[in-house]
């Protein structure tokens, strides 16, 4: 049986890769991808903890599935917004989108 | 329903009327009706007050009526008048009345202009009828805010800058004031916001701890003093007045600046007597500076309104100066000076507005020989000028003399010296007034375009004549006003004397 630490190690890498990406990337699309990474890292953790620590329960799995669904919905909305912004401004880089600031 | 509240009610009705008004004539109709009603009411109040006072010489305030407003904080809507507020209400009504006529020709957005104008007057009237500190503060704020829009929208010159400056400085004053008011409220036990109740509670205003008074007094005095153009917080006045439209300058210099003096006297001196005795020397010096400094500054200005604004700094400085002298006569003089300055300066601003409306310049280097072109306005200007420099028979003389005699009642070199310094202002005033009269009214017209200009129209004549009559009336028969004011001043001075005297001040290095 694989040790729990291995799972957590992977999800931690994904999580921090996501955070790093979220903070540093300028493209909104890349930021969205980073968010997905973080969500997936969380999903992995849910599934792993549920499977290894509470084998009789299903709450963690449910939560992971919810997470996946929400991620899907969120990326749909996000990409829709991005496309709209791109249509308006021909740009989706976050530091350029200052039109509605101040 | 107490009839004092009608002073607030009429402006409210006027606001409704203006809101419903469909055209210029209706707007004017509402304004004339309303301001005439206010004037009539204030005249009625004078007689009613004199009547009631003769029946009841004891109570400090007459026509008192109190309505609970916000019980948890002991805020009430309490109205009541004494001789001082009656005089101030009369002054305000006269200025609002003449101000209406002075802005007869105002364009554009006449309706909106009058809406704000009426709101402002409501604040002013409300301030003078209430004796509850919180309600007073509220009306004070109501009077301040419209000023921003009136100057910012209908003003001239650097109007946005001036409007912003005026509002910010006065708001800064309000912040001090609010601290002071809450300080007094909690210092006096946190049971009432009513000025009279605080003053007459067990132990009087001395129930407020002396050390705390030392903190609240400067706050309150400066808070109101900013509005009364206390040096060095006076700089909003020249810019604000210069940019404001005619009637707003009139109302502002004529009435709003009096809120400052009135508040200083009614709240700072009355409720914080120990601190007043202790610290008034500082303010005496500041106001003494105001008096001379304003007059000297006015000597070299080139804009008519700046000259008058600095002259207001000097004259309002004299009001606060007299209040700080804390003698009965000087305080009566202070109130008389408020009346006199209110009328005089309103007259001045009205005339400047009319001249500006014709020549489109207020620069005295570009104006000359107006006596030939617009004799009526020029003669009135001379009269206003003479009133300003204290010609006997007009109001300025009465007020100044009362102040000087009253200030001299304080023995001691410091007070005598301050009075003598203040006396020099009468000479400097003469210098700038005569310089002005000589430059713009006398001589021959230099600008050929000015030759086509016409003299005053009927509405302008009407408002100017009303003001001149008021100035002359006060100057010729000061005794009845001064008697009326005396009854109002008396309790405050008693309170101050009960707290000791100016000579007990330990902090005053000049004693």
């Amino acid at each position, binding site marked *: 049986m694989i040790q729990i630490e291995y799972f957590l190690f992977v999800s931690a890498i994904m999580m921090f890769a996501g955070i790093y990406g979220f903070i540093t990337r300028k493209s909104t699309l890349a930021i969205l991808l980073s968010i997905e990474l973080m969500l997936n890292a969380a999903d992995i953790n849910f599934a792993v903890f549920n499977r290894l620590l509470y084998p009789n329960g299903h709450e963690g799995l449910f939560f992971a599935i919810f997470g996946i669904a929400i991620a899907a919905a969120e990326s749909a909305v996000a990409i829709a917004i991005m496309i709209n912004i791109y249509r308006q401004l021909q740009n989706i880089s976050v530091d350029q989108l200052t039109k509605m600031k101040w | 329903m107490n009839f004092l509240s009608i002073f607030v009610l009429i402006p409210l009705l006027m606001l409704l009327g203006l809101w419903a008004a469909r055209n210029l004539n209706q707007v004017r109709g509402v304004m004339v009706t309303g301001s005439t009603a206010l004037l009539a009411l204030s005249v009625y109040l004078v007689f009613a007050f004199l009547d009631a006072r003769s029946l009841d010489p004891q109570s400090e305030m007459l026509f008192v009526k109190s309505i609970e407003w916000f019980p948890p904080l002991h805020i009430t809507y309490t109205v009541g008048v004494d001789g001082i507020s009656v005089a101030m209400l009369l002054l305000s009504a006269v200025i609002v009345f003449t101000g209406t006529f002075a802005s007869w020709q105002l364009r554009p957005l006449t309706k909106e202009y009058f809406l704000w104008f009426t709101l402002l007057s409501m604040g002013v009237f409300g301030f003078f009828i209430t004796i509850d500190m919180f309600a007073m503060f509220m009306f004070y704020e109501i009077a301040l805010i419209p000023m921003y829009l009136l100057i910012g929208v209908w003003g001239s010159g650097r109007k946005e800058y001036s409007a912003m400056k005026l509002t910010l400085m006065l708001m800064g004053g309000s912040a001090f004031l609010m601290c002071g008011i809450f300080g007094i409220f909690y210092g006096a036990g946190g049971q009432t916001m009513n000025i009279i109740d605080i003053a007459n509670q067990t132990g009087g205003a001395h129930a407020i701890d002396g050390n705390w008074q030392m903190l609240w007094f400067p706050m309150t005095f400066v808070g109101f003093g900013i509005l009364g153009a206390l040096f060095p917080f006076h700089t909003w006045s020249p810019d604000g007045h210069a940019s404001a439209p005619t009637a707003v300058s009139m109302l502002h210099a004529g009435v709003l600046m009096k809120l400052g003096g009135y508040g200083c006297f009614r709240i700072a001196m009355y409720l914080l007597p120990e601190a007043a005795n202790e610290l008034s020397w500082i303010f005496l010096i500041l106001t003494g500076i105001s008096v001379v400094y304003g007059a000297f500054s006015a000597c070299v200005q080139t804009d008519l309104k700046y000259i008058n604004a600095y002259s207001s700094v000097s004259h309002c400085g004299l009001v606060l100066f007299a209040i700080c002298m804390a003698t009965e006569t000087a305080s009566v003089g202070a109130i008389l000076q408020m009346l006199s300055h209110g009328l005089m300066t309103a007259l001045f601003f009205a005339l400047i507005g009319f001249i500006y409306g014709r020549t489109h310049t207020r620069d005295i280097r570009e104006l000359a020989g107006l006596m030939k072109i617009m004799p009526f306005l020029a003669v009135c200007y001379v009269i206003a000028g003479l009133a300003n420099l204290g010609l006997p028979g007009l109001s300025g003389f009465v007020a100044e003399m009362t102040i000087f*005699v009253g200030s001299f009642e304080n023995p001691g070199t410091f007070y005598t010296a301050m009075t003598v310094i203040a006396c020099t202002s009468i000479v400097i005033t003469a210098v700038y007034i005569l310089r002005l009269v000589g430059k713009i009214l006398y001589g021959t017209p230099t600008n050929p375009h000015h030759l086509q200009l016409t003299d005053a129209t009927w509405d302008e004549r009407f408002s100017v004549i009303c003001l001149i009559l008021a100035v002359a009336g006060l100057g010729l028969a000061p005794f009845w006003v001064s008697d009326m004011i005396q009854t109002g001043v008396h309790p405050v001075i008693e309170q101050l004397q009960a707290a000791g005297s100016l000579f007990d001040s330990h902090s005053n290095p000049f004693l």
Partner: protein
Amino acid sequence: MEHTIFILLLPLFSFLLIGVIDMDITKTGKVWSHKAAGLIGTSSLAVVTLLSYLTAYEYFTAERLTDGTFATIVPYNFTWLPLGTLHFDLGILLDPISVMMLVVISTVSLMVHLYSFGYMNGEKGFQRYYAFLSLFTMSMLGLVLATNIFQMYLFWELVGVSSYLLIGFYYTSPAAIAASKKAFIVTRFADMFFLVGILIFGYFAESFSFSFSGTIQLAEGAAAFQTVNISKEVAAAGFLIPTALVLMFIGGAGKSAMFPLHIWLPDAMEGPTPVSALIHAATMVVAGVFQIARMFPMWMEYAPDSLSIVVWVGALTAFYAAAVACVQTDIKRVLAFSTISQIAFMMVALGACLPGHGDHLIDNHSSLGYMASMFHLFTHAMFKACLFLGAGCIIHAVHSNEMSDMGGLRKYMPITHATFLISCLAIAGIPGLSGFFSKDEIITACFAYSPLLGWWMTVVAAMTAFYMFRLYYGIFWGKDNSEAYAHHTPHEASWTMTVPLIVLSLITIVGGWIPFGHLVSATGQAYDIHLNTQVAVTSSVIAIVAIGLATWIFAGKQQPIAQKMYAAAPRLHRWAYKRFYLDEVYQFVTHRIIFRRISSPIARFDRRVIDGFFDFLAWGTHRTAALIRNFQSGNVQHYAFAFLLGALLLLLLMIF
């Protein structure tokens, strides 16, 4: 004496009637024709004059009191403005000097009103002129009838303003504007001292009244004074009452054009000539003298030593003005300086009074100067008004003020010539005419005070005779300006202008024979004027010598001696002509120092420093906001980074 109220009310009503209604409120054109305005003014003044004479007659013929003085009558007095323990009254006070002043003012004023009919004929602003004249007359009468020092101050200011308005009557002329401004500001400056004097006096004497006598009382609320080191009584008697009186004298010196506050008077001649006659020669300028006379008992009681200030200021002024008058070429200026010099005579006389002997504070003999001063005030008003009105006729005829444009006018204007000559002889002190008597009393008083002063004033009297006859010869004799007169022959003025001259010169002739000492004297008791033979002879001889000198130098068609004298001392001549550059000094002080060094820096300080400070506050707030704003970048990534750091920080905190 109840009718005296009309003496004040009538001119006031005529002022309001002519002035206010004429303001043309209704825009329907002038309400009064020129004639109507003049008639209203003159007729009301005529009634006032009659009333004044009636008052004087009733007053001086009334029974004297047991101590030989005339009763002081106060027909009206009411509290105009209560001022704490003090009160400010308005009323009417009749005593010998105020009644005497009533007569002087109403007479001269009536003459001037009448004269102005001709002189101001056709001027623009004729109504305005009469309105101002009425205002002035009312104020001046109010001043002399004042029951207290404060009322005096009130009317004092009013006469100042009417003087300002009348000097600036020709308001399109820059010289008139400047002169009116100068007159008002200089006198106002002096008035400030007067006011402070009144305040001190009112405070320590606890009264503004003149009739206050006895010791200075302690204040009732004496508690207030315990903190003051010096008790009120001591302070008052020893130092402060004299100070107050001297301050009041400074006010009087301003109005009466004493050195160095005299500079406004010569310039005031920019006004219409009848105004100069009324205000700047006969009435208003003697207000200062009148004020000292009013406060005379105070001076005697509390400040007899300080009177020496009055003496020496007066003596200096008398000499200075006489010296300047000797070289002026503008005839009105010569008369103006002569006025200054003559008023200084009155001042000197008042100052030269000594306290009485024994238990009498004042006795008529030691205080001869008081009577002499009032007498001279009376006679001087008459002959100086006559001189000014005569000068007005001449200016009217020649259209110039300069002596060089005149000469030989005696043939063209016989009446003016005769009256002018009479007045000149009077002012020079030729025996028989009024000026001789009054001036003689003054010089006698001066000799009694100190021989130095006596000789000093005798010299000034000689100078008076000299410059007056220089003027007289310059106008009526000397070169005949036939060419200049050819296109416009000077002619005698209309009867409205000559009648006042004749009336005034008649008074000048007979005025000296009035038993003045019986009417007005220091104590109020009758005093017989006896000429001091020595003084009388000396001064007459000196006057005649001076006139002879003037005749020798100036009477001829050519004036070689005068030219030679000017050439001999050109600098002195120029300095005197420029009035010793005092005007320039004042100009320097006001413009360079007050405007440039005080006002401008204050105005700049206000804009730059004080206003700058508040602008700096606003700017600082703005800058701080701009700085802080960068933290709110709106960029979620920044927030996330901050969040992450915060989370890590918390984590670290929790671990350690």
